[in-house]
Structures are given as structure tokens and as C-alpha cells.
């Protein structure tokens, strides 16, 4: 007996609930934008400069004591959080200390780092410092710029490619879906105040890549069906295409999510934020390729005049037929 996540020959009308799903997407997107501006993102040192010190100890951590030990050092804004992780052993207590960028310094001076370490060692002799990272304001400013450029570059490159391979309506549909995915991911990071650093940008780009992957598969089928069923209304062509590819969409998202959930639970706390972003993005990306991208294509409409046999020959550079 084979496992079938999606029964054969589904005929779900994905547009039946279009106002609800599309509306929900729109509301969530707006909510994300609002969250981004109201709560802001919990930027890591990559983007706002400063120093993070990871501490590890065999004795339990009292954040209040840590704070009291560090206050006399006058380091400005210091945040201390304890890190919990199922992979930690019983006697492993980890905390992350973040110290703001120091006035007039790029990266934090070794003396200042040493004074922090000494203060904590006085409190807990068993403490160790597995990682110390310091980023100056100059670099963090540039990293923000690079991050924004890379996300925009990815979006532009993908839109351009889709536009070459498909019709422009598809490109718009794809990019709306991508912006939706990126927006919702940023929204959840703002909502839960998860640390947003350079790795999350990499995650955003991966989401962009993955989501477009899903969307393209549906579009590719739609393109094929548009030629096959020349008189079928666009809405039904799109519906049919989605149904035909639904099994694949669910399968691929399923295997990817299985792998990611393993990483999320067992991969350790260092990359948890990164893996969480990708996992969330894949859920949202799968949803958007089914419910968002097509709706946009439907709204824009596609030229169905196939009287000229090669109407779009000039815009397709790689008609593969191997």
C-alpha cells in the first residue's frame, strides 16, 4: 500500500475561497509591515554593531547576578538572555550577552572584553566563553546595505528570468508571492523578536529561491495547459494546473520540511533562528504559490491569442525539448 498524501485526480477549486485566502494574505502582510514599524526587528550585532559573548557554565545562570556584575563596567546597553536547547546536557547552562557598540571604537577592545570575562569569572569560576564576536558600526552599516542589495538583486534577477521564460503577468504574480513570503517572514521575526542577523538574510534569499521554485512548477504547467486547452477559461486552466501539480507540491514541501524539522530540533541553538526562518518561509512559500501567485495572474489576465503560432518566440530563449 503506497502512501498518498494527495489523492489522484483531485479537483479542488482553489479560487472558491479566493477572497478569503487572498484577503488573509493581504491582512497578514499588512500586519507584518505594521509589526516591523511598531515593534521593529531585534537586529543582531551584524546590523547594529556591538559585541556578543556566549557563556557556558556547569552551574545555573542567574541573569540578575550577571547584570549586577557587569553594571559597574559602564558598557552602556547590555542585554543578557539565557539560551535553552533540548540538545544541551543537564549541566550545560548557556547565555548570550550582547553589549552595544562602544563610543569611539570599532570592534570592542580586548581589554574591555577581558574585563567582562573577569567580572563573570569572579561570579562563577566554572564559566567559559565559547564565542566572542564584535562588529564595529562601520561594518554593520555596510552589512545592512549589502543585505538589502542582495535581497533586491535576487528579486530582480528572478522576475527578469520569469519574464523571459513566461509572460510578464506571471513575473508579476511571482514577485508578489515572493514579497508576500519575505514580508511574512520579517513579520514573524518582529512579532517574536527573534534575533535578525546576516544568516537570516541568507534564509530570506533561500525562501525566495524555494518559493519561486514552487511557483515556477505551477506556472510551467499552466503554460503547458494554456496551449493544450486553448478555449478553457483562464481560471480553470490555472485551477487544473494547480490540481495536477498539487501532489508534487505537497511531496516536495513535505520532504523538505521533514529534513528541516530534524535540523530545527536536533541541529543545536546556534543556527536555530536561521533554520526557523527557512522552515517558516517554506510553509508560507508553499501556501503563496498555491494561493497568491495564481490570483495575481488571474487578476492581470493572460493574452490568449494563439492565432500566431510563435507569438512569444522572442521572449523565450531556452525552449528545451530534450
Amino acid at each position, binding site marked *: 500500500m503506497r502512501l498518498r498524501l494527495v489523492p489522484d485526480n483531485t479537483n479542488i477549486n482553489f479560487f472558491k475561497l479566493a477572497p478569503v485566502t487572498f484577503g488573509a494574505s493581504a491582512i497578514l502582510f499588512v500586519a507584518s509591515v505594521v509589526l516591523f514599524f511598531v515593534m521593529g526587528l531585534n537586529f543582531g550585532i551584524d546590523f547594529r554593531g556591538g559585541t556578543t559573548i556566549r557563556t557556558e557554565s556547569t552551574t545555573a545562570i542567574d541573569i540578575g547576578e550577571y547584570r549586577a556584575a557587569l553594571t559597574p563596567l559602564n558598557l552602556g546597553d547590555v542585554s543578557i538572555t539565557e539560551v535553552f536547547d533540548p540538545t544541551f546536557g543537564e549541566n550545560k547552562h548557556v547565555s548570550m550577552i550582547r553589549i552595544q557598540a562602544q563610543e569611539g571604537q570599532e570592534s570592542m577592545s580586548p581589554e574591555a572584553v577581558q574585563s567582562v570575562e573577569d567580572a563573570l569569572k569572579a561570579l562563577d569560576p566554572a564559566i567559559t566563553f565559547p564565542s566572542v564576536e*564584535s562588529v564595529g558600526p562601520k561594518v554593520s552599516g555596510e552589512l545592512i546595505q549589502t543585505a538589502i542589495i542582495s535581497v533586491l538583486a535576487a528579486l530582480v534577477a528572478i522576475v527578469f528570468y520569469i519574464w523571459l521564460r513566461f509572460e510578464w503577468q506571471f513575473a508579476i504574480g511571482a514577485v508578489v508571492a515572493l514579497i508576500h513570503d519575505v514580508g511574512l517572514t520579517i513579520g514573524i521575526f518582529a512579532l517574536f523578536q527573534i534575533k535578525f542577523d546576516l544568516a537570516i538574510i541568507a534564509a530570506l534569499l533561500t525562501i525566495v529561491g524555494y518559493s519561486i521554485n514552487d511557483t515556477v512548477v505551477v506556472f510551467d504547467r499552466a503554460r503547458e495547459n494554456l496551449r493544450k486547452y486553448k478555449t478553457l477559461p483562464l481560471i480553470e486552466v490555472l485551477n487544473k494546473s494547480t490540481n495536477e501539480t498539487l501532489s508534487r507540491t505537497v511531496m516536495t514541501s513535505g520532504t523538505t520540511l521533514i529534513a528541516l524539522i530534524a535540523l530545527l530540533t536536533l541541529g543545536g541553538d*546556534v543556527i536555530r533562528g536561521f533554520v526557523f526562518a527557512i522552515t517558516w518561509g517554506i510553509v508560507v512559500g508553499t501556501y503563496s504559490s498555491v494561493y497568491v501567485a495564481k490570483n495575481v495572474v488571474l487578476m492581470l489576465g493572460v493574452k490568449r491569442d494563439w492565432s500566431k503560432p510563435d507569438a512569444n518566440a522572442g521572449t523565450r530563449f531556452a525552449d528545451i525539448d530534450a
Partner: protein
Amino acid sequence: MLQIDRWKRVLIWLVCFAFAVLAVPNLFYARVEAHNDAVVAIETKGATPEREAAVAAWPNWMPSGLVNLGLDLRGGAHLLAEVKVEDVYQQRMLGLWPEVRSALVLERDTVGFVNTAPGPEGELHVKISKPEGMAKALEVVRGLARPIQSLSGIGSTDIEVSGQGDTLVIRLSDAEKQATDDRTVKQALEIVRRRIDAVGTREPTIQRQGADRILIQVPGIGSAAELKAIIGTTAQLTFNPVVSRVTDKNTAPGTGNKLVPSIDEEGVYYIIEAAPVVTGEELNDAQPSFDQNGRPAVNFRFNTSGARKFGDYTRDNIGQPFAIVLDNEVISAPVIQSHIPGGSGIITGRFTVEESTNLAVLLRAGALPAELTFLEERTIGPELGQDSIDAGKVAAAVGSGAVVLFMAATYGMFGWIANIALLLNIAMMFGVLSLIGGTLTLPGIAGIVLTVGMAVDANVLIFERIREELKTARGPARAIELGYERALSSILDSNITTFMTAVILFALGSGPVRGFAITLGLGILTSVFTAFFVTRLIIVMWFERKRPKTIEV
């Protein structure tokens, strides 16, 4: 029908086999690493029984390329330094003053007396007592300018001279500044490299980044502070007259003198004159060598001015001891036996061969041309890296296992074929990474796990398509053929777009993020390869043998 030429089959299997073999060393990481280190050590430092044994532990006919582990997995320090290139402008201007003065002195009748005036950093301000001679002064000083080669055009010179009232303002031209900056950064890079190499750490990355930055990554080092200490070591070598030799460290040295410890004799201190006779700045060359008793030593040679000072001092102080002082420690305090006119000499002490080599390197490297500001520092402890590797391994194993079961449950025999492809995929990724010397980082491990999830995508697309074609096509052979044919455009479109994002990540990202981009991009390439060639070949071979009337996908 389903036909693949024999040579193609052989080629496909050969490619798979080759990459799988290339991946094998990574299964024996520690052993191969020891082997590689020992091979290098024997080449440079000679053979010892332990090194021979380490070499023998891994067969030479096997590939020995390994995946580099990034700093976040291996532990180590990362520094991003900015070279303060402006420092050099000031030095250049100071160096120009004597030349300007002598040139203007010749025209004293027209320009009067000349003197420096205070000006901003990087500019030379020269006051002349007869402002009416400014035109002549400008002409004379401009005559000192040297033409430079630059892309911006012919006719540019190294300095710009302008007159403001009775003051000449001399500064470096923009083209010269650019050229100077470039030289300064290259020089700083070289010195940093020599200092780190001198300490002999493994596989340091020392790269120029942008116009005036240097990226330094040294695996295995304890902390960024330690790394900074190595880079910051100036190896200040001085030759000072010795006043006396004492064993009490509380001896008052007296004015103009200072007390420094001996580097190799415990409890021995020297009182030396604080003003050195000659300094290491005036060294032209330093080479490791051996003294007449065959003990390791360092030969050195001064430049012309250093040689003159050294020669004069040795001529006047025969029979007196003088101290060779390195970073405020006396290496040795020999007695001057004779006049040393040539400016070359030898430093002896209780060195090992390694120490004398390091000292020579440090002396040769000299001081950094400009100050370094550190913009970014990261230290990752080796335990944290090891934890990450362990967690990554477990997660990858569990994730792959779950995906394999899921595929088998969904597609039956075809699922197992996809699973074979999946394993090949991972092997090939490691093979390629080893071949190109790629770096595996923690996000890179995430990239591999993500690839495991996504790698089956191409096969899923094909299998789903075959399922569909089975409903309409005549016979299973035709269905398989059509399935591959029609899934191709989807697979290419979707993977090309993902690949583009990987390329963008690689181009704009750095360090760990770049490691992610590498594994993501590689994963896409290998998964497309295995889906199109390997699973197809396996299916065709199975089909040829069984000739089934119906198939179930």
C-alpha cells in the same frame, strides 16, 4: 524507446564513482588530516618516526583532499582590519621636507628664507619670507614632482603644489594617493601574512578586501586578542650600549638608562642606554643561519645609514659589550671584538632552528607601514564548533533517514531509486567540496540538510509526471520516456531560479553565509545531475531486465 548509449552509461557511472571516491577521505577526517600535515611537515622540516607513521596511516594512492571546515565549525579567530592609509601621507610629506628645503635654498635670492608652517595632517606647509618670489618657489617645488603612471591619464605627478599668500601647500595628488594606498595595503598584507606564517598556524586566510581592508582568519587559535597580539608584534630590534649586568631586578638603572631582562638567562638583567645605536628599521635583510659552532643564529645586514652608525660605534667601542634587544628583552650581549665596517653581523643566542627562522622572518617583515583598526572580531571556541558538527551530523542523519522512508513509502521501488540518488548526491557534494577545497560552515550544513529535502524534488517531479503519463500513454516505457521529457522544463526553470539566488548569496555574502551558498548551489547541480542521469539510468537498466507490462509509481 528507452535507450542510453553504452559509452554514456559508462561515463555516468564513472562520474558518480569518481566523486564518491573523492568524498571518502572525509569519512576518516582526523586520519587524513594528520596524513596531510605530516606530508607537509616532512617536506619542510624533515622526517621523524611519528610523521612517517602518520603518512603511512592513509594510503598515498587514495585522494587526500578534505572539505575545509569553516571557523564556526573548527574554532578560531576572525579579524577584519582597516589599514589607516592616511598615516603614510604624513610620513611622505615629512620625508619630502629636506628635499624641498634644499631645492629652495638654492633660490634664496628670490624666495628668501624658508621654513615649515603648521598645516593639516598629510600636507606640507612651507613659508617663504619673500612672498613676491612665490612664482619661482612654485616652479622649483613643482620641479621636484615625479610623473606617475596611472589609468587616469598621462601627465599626472605625485605631488600637487599650490601657493596661498606666503605659504606653499604641498600635498599628494589623488592619483598618487591611490597608488600609495594600494602599496600600503599590499605591504601591510604581506607583513601580516609573514607574521602569521611565522607562528606556523594551519591554513590561515589572509585576504585583501575592498580598497583598504584585510580579512584575517586563523583556525585553531585561542582568541582574537591572541591573533591581534601576533599581528601587533612589531619585533622591535635595537642595538644598545650596555652599562652593566645585574641580578637584582630592583636595581635603579639611572637616568637615560633602562633595565631589561635577559631572554634566556633567568634572573639576569642588563642596564642599557635607552637610546639605541641602531634599530631594526635600518635592517635590509635577515636570514636564519648557523654560527661558527654550528648553532642556529640569524645573519643580518643593515642599510647604508645603519651600516655607517653600526660601523662607527663598533670602531669606537672595541672591548665593550653591547646588547641586542628584541621587544625589550636582551637576546644576547656580546663583546665587540673588532670594528665591523660592512654593516652585516650575526645574532647568536640559545635559539632552536625554528626560533632563529621566526626571528629572521619577524626582522625582515619589519614594522607595519600604517596602523590597523579592527572593524570586526570574532572568536569561536573549538568546543562550540565541535558541538555544532555533532548536532549537524545527528540532524543530517535523522533528516535523511526520514526523507528516505517517506520516499520509499510514497513511491515504492521508484522511491528507493530516488534514495540511491539522494545518497549519491550527498557523496558527490562532499566530493566536489573536497576537490575545489570548498569550506563547510554551520549554515553550510543547513544547506546540505536543505538539499536533502529538496534533492528529491527533481525525482518527485519526474515520478509524478510518469504517474500522469501512465494514465494516457501507450505502455510503461513510453510513460517513463514522456515523464522525463516533460518534467525537464519544470525542473530546469525551478532549479535555475534557485541557483540564481545561490549565486547572489555567494557574490554578496561572506564567511558562513558564503558556505551556505556553496552547499546550496552544489546541491542543486548534483541533484539535477542525479535526477537526469543516474535515476534514469537505473530505471532504464531495471526496465531492460524486467520488461514489465505495467508499472506502479
